[in-house]
């Protein structure tokens, strides 16, 4: 019994047990889908890295010694003037006080509660920097402005150098596995209250806590805004393409039943609902949609030509079984290449799509024919105009086949010459550039402060009380002076600043004493005094260890690209190696260091993944066509769309990010499908002893229309993905859409010409 007969028997069995098939499919799907409730809320940037990622481990080690690094920041900017206005300071003060109520907060710092030391001989008074808000005169305000500009720990930390923007930094001590929702909700509520009370002053929410929360809020917003619209689009699209309400319903069921259990499986696997996962249902949807359209369009055509409903669907299954299987298989394998990357969120998305592709295939060959046979379906299917157009196209290609190949080759060579301009990089500062609330705050913070992120360095002495050693503090100073000269660094704060300030204040406030004293005991006693004089939440515990063997540097960093960050990190490490002895550090750590490194390493992994997916898919295509010749021919239409796609990218940017690579891995499996469909039909035509031009006509008749429809579905799916608030999803959607459209053009124009020239003749 040959393969086609087996498929036929399989189809007949399905139709004989159609009710059982429908019910058991529905029950199984419901069971698996119930795992959706286990989908975990995204844990922000922390869920974006693997636990054992070196740069994340650095952060964890730092947190173990000095407490959690996450900061929730309020950004305060008056519409007119700087922050030294009575109302603005009052707002900052009130919001600072209210911020102690923030869930999980451990300390709050702002310009108003900054601990300021006033010296009067041997009387030292330490108090909030600004008090008696109602009695502030213009003169007081300008005095305060001048004083603030001189305080190291104010400028660039709670106030911009221009004095135009004030910040309130709230350190959060988040318990493990708790999302930032509570503190963020609290902060947004405060923002609303204070903007209402002070309508001329802008209050924004930023910091690593908001950044982290964006992952969750963006995923939620995308899911609730994108999905319903997309489903509607699909219903309209399937109806327009199939002209049958029942057929559209079947397509819709198959699509939904492919998506739900794959999300359910994601839940059973314990995946997080990170923004990349949002793309998974859309990709699954487009694949299943393409499957359904292939199956239904041929069945409907068959009915038009007089076949009975059951015979029509059996025949369609015979024609489509292998191509549908290959589509699901190549898509799954292609996207599985993402597992070579270093970002769990993308691997989880890929694996969810792979599962979805499997469901799509299984349902298209079981549930779909069963439903088709059960439901009352009439065929109004007409493809005459399209077919006429395709016939014209086929003869046109036959006539000008050499020109098609030459013109396409020339275009490819030109575009190829553009590709060397491309370079791999990433810019984590752009992740949420499509979230208006985030951008509004970012546009205020970034020009004034560089970014709202901090980087840290843990500098160790390896002996208790070692940090009171003047040699150590001078070394910190040296390191700080070197750091502030680096482009990536906006400002640095160290415990040596604290000591210098204390030394000055203990010596009558004279500027000449703003230096590190040359006496270890004196420094130790200064620290002791300082520890005694600051209130709750103002101590140095987040800057030094209890045994005073090491201290933490705080570095305000500018946004940098991955390449810049890696270079900066290298320079820091080499400075450390050459200059820091005898003291030790593991180098700088923090979100601005981790994220870029994550993408650098991810890029390397994805390149390996690309290699894997490409070679595997080409192998599969060659094997399925059982021909080396067609295998080689298939490489051209499968590779050219990517070359052209990246050529088009150079019109916008030369930076190839991880998102572009992800787009390649997603689309490779989809691009290959059309080629497989076309080539397998061509082989069949040749085996039917058709002449070359007739063979092309045959291909166009049987697969031209489905390929066009499938491509339209995929294209609109990816265009929809560009509506995502997550910048990376936007890039992936756009890139995939471009590649899919190019692939369609190549399959319709170049591939037939190639077959006419290089293919076997009857």
């Amino acid at each position: 019994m040959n393969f086609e007969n087996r498929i036929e028997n399989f189809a007949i069995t399905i139709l004989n047990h159609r009710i059982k098939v429908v019910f058991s499919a529905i029950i199984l799907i419901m069971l698996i889908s119930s795992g959706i409730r286990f989908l975990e809320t995204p844990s922000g940037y922390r869920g974006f890295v693997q636990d054992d990622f070196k740069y994340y481990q650095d952060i964890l080690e730092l947190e173990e010694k000095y407490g959690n690094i996450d900061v929730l920041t309020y950004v305060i900017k008056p519409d007119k003037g700087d922050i030294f206005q009575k109302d603005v300071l009052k707002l900052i003060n009130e919001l600072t006080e209210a911020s102690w109520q923030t869930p999980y907060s451990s300390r709050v710092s702002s310009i108003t509660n900054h601990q300021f030391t006033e010296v009067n001989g041997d009387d030292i008074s330490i108090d909030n920097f600004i008090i008696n808000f109602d009695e502030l005169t213009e003169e007081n305000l300008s005095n305060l402005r001048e004083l603030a500009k001189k305080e190291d720990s104010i400028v660039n930390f709670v106030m911009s150098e221009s004095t135009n923007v004030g910040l309130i930094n709230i350190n959060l001590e988040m318990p493990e596995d708790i999302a930032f929702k509570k503190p963020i909700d609290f902060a947004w509520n405060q923002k609303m209250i204070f903007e209402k009370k002070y309508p001329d002053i802008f209050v924004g929410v930023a910091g690593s806590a908001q950044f982290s929360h964006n992952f969750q809020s963006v995923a939620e917003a995308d899911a609730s805004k994108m999905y319903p619209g997309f489903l509607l689009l699909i219903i309209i699209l399937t109806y327009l393409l199939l002209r049958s309400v029942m057929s559209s319903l079947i397509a819709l069921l198959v699509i939904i039943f492919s998506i739900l259990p794959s999300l359910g499986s994601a839940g059973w696997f314990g995946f997080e609902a990170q923004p990349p996962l949002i793309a998974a249902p859309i990709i699954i949807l487009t694949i299943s949609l393409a499957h359904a359209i292939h199956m239904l369009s041929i069945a409907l055509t068959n009915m038009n030509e007089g076949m009975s409903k059951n015979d029509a669907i059996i025949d369609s299954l015979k024609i489509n079984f292998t191509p549908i299987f290959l589509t699901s298989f190549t898509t799954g394998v292609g996207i599985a290449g993402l597992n070579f990357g270093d970002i769990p969120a993308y691997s989880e998305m890929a694996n969810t799509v792979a599962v979805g592709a499997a469901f799509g295939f299984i349902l298209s060959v079981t549930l779909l024919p069963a439903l088709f046979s059960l439901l009352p379906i009439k065929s109004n299917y007409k493809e005459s105009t399209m077919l006429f157009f395709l016939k014209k196209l086929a003869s046109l290609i036959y006539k000008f086949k050499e020109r098609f190949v030459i013109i396409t080759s020339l275009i490819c060579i030109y575009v190829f010459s553009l590709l060397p301009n491309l370079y791999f990089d990433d810019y984590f500062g752009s992740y949420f550039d499509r979230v208006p609330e985030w951008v509004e705050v970012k546009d205020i913070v970034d020009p004034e402060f560089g970014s709202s992120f901090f980087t840290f360095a843990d500098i160790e002495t390896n002996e208790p009380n070692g940090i009171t050693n003047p040699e150590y503090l001078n070394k910190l100073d040296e390191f700080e002076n070197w750091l502030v000269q680096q482009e990536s660094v906006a400002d640095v704060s160290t415990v040596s600043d604290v000591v210098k300030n204390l030394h000055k204040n203990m010596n009558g406030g004279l500027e000449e004493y703003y230096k590190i004293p040359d006496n270890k005991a004196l420094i130790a006693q200064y620290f002791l005094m300082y520890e005694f004089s600051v209130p709750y939440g103002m101590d140095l515990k987040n800057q030094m260890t209890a045994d005073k063997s090491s201290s933490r540097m705080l570095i305000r960093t500018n946004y940098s690209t991955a390449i810049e960050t890696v270079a900066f990190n290298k320079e820091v490490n080499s400075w450390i190696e050459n200059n820091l002895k005898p003291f030790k550090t593991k180098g700088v750590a923090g979100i601005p260091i981790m994220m870029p490194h994550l993408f650098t390493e991810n890029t390397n992994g994805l390149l390996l993944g690309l290699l894997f997916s490409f070679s595997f898919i080409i192998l599969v295509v060659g094997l399925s066509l059982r021909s080396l010749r067609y295998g080689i021919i298939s490489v051209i239409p499968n590779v050219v769309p990517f070359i052209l796609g990246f050529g088009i990218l150079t019109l916008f940017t030369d930076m190839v990010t991880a998102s572009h690579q992800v787009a390649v891995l997603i689309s490779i499996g989809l691009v290959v499908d059309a080629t497989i469909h076309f080539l397998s039909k061509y082989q069949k035509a040749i085996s039917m002893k058709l002449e070359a031009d007739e063979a092309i006509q045959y291909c166009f008749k049987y697969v031209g229309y489905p390929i066009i429809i499938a491509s339209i579905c995929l294209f609109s799916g990816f265009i929809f993905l560009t509506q995502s608030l997550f910048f990376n999803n936007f890039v992936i959607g756009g890139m995939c859409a471009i590649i899919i459209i190019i692939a369609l053009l190549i399959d319709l124009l170049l591939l037939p010409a190639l077959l006419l020239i290089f293919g076997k003749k009857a």
Partner: protein
Amino acid sequence: MKKIILVLIILISTKLSIAESSEEKGYNIAKSSYESGRGFTDMISDQLMILIDPKGNQVTREISAKSLENLDPYDGDKTITYFETPKDVEGTVMLSHTHINEDDDQWLYLPALTRVKRISSSNKSGSFMGSEVAFEDFSAGDYRKYKWKYIGEEVYEGDLCYVLESYPIYENSGYTKRVGLTDKLLRARKIDFYDRKGELLKTVFFEDYNLYGDKIWMADSMKVENHQNKNATIFQWQNRKLNVGLDNKDFEKSSLMRLAD
């Protein structure tokens, strides 16, 4: 004996005064508890402070202290603290004139600077030498610093205890609420502290109670567990002696000055 009579009085008074509100009852227990610890006149002791981080690493600090009881019902005691370790701070002395609901007066003698500095700050809520103990915790039993509320009774380590809620009066306090257990001998056994956002911050356990001068129970160990940052501090009193004949002259700024000369 005096103690027992006191307890009896309280027991009887609580039984008699049914009309007493829970605020009054709480206040009365707190007041009696505070007063049962008074009458030491003056005191000297050595103290050991052990800081423990979440990984279990320990750091020990040694200090010794003198204190003088203030009989003025509207003012606090006077204390002098001598810092002995780490070696670099050896010889540093702090004099405090504590006040009930205002900032304390503090003078600090730094030997490396050979000068006395007067420090004024609202630091009562701040950490004591980087520990989990705040300045205000040392006078945790002073009934005048809080508003009180009697909640009920609860068995703790085999002893029936009063459950008292208290709310700080000092405006710069680091706390919003405390829930404490005071046993029938009027000894504070355990207090839960709630931070400014009303969340459980830390628990202080008073242990190792010894009877001094045959009349005053004093805890010679205080263990603090911070529930938020998972750090702990153990405070131990050694060589505690009461009524050794100190007077006001020993607690004046000039006594620090003498060290400075």
